[in-house]
């Protein structure tokens, strides 16, 4: 049982780190603001899966679910505000290319 859990933990951790790398690469390599948001969302999914995995491995399933639900609610609000900012940028510049904003990557 213990070795089964530890194998599950290791395999899932590798998957989580790979999704994290994909999201981070997307966030760093893009100039488009919307694609940056998609990268952030992938990072958040990786962390949500990590919390659920932690709960499963240690038996604290209920606590992990409560944390994950709260996390999802907060992420929706952050995405909504970020989309609001992107909308204002678009209205100003007629484009969402981050390179047109002077100091976007720094």
């Amino acid at each position, binding site marked *: 049982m213990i070795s089964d859990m530890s194998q599950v933990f290791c395999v899932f*951790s590798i998957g989580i780190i790979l999704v994290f790398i*994909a*999201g981070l690469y997307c966030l760093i390599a893009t100039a488009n603001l919307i694609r940056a*948001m998609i990268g952030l*969302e992938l990072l958040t999914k990786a962390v949500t899966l990590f919390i*659920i995995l932690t709960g499963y491995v240690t038996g604290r399933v209920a606590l992990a679910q409560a944390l994950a639900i709260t996390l999802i609610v907060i992420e929706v609000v952050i995405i909504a*505000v970020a989309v609001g900012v992107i909308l204002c940028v678009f209205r100003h510049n007629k484009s969402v290319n981050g390179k047109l904003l002077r100091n976007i990557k720094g």
Partner: protein
Amino acid sequence: MDIINTILLVVLVVSAIWTVMTPRLPRSAIGLGITSAVLTIIMFKLSSPLAAVFELSICAGLISAIFISIISLMPRITAQDRDIRQKEHFHKYWLLPIIIVAAAIALSQFALPTNFNLPAEPVENDVRIILWNLRHLDLLGQIVILLAGAFGVAILFKERKND
């Protein structure tokens, strides 16, 4: 059990890579939704049904809808533009699958310490009781952040009269 979990994980990573690598933005948003759906199935298998339902309805549903609606505001691009963008996109992102495969091979060589000795038994096993009775501060925080989000949407989404 292990085979299904491994297959689900591989599907998750592949859909994440496709979300990043696809050059067209609406397809990227759909890819995000597919990734959420696969994540829901994985969470269900990890005995977390309530969180899985939240993930499906909010992330795969609401967030994908938000993304598609903001993407639909972007002006349409012509076919030649599309080909140029596709080439530029793959120029930037061809490195990603190579990094992922290399990382997967490198990470599977490590062994993590897995003797998680916890101090005590879990206090409560029902998600609803934990959320509503034990973590009141979190509930207050969620209410406040939803209010803040409502203000943000009201302030930022409004058309300015003299724009």
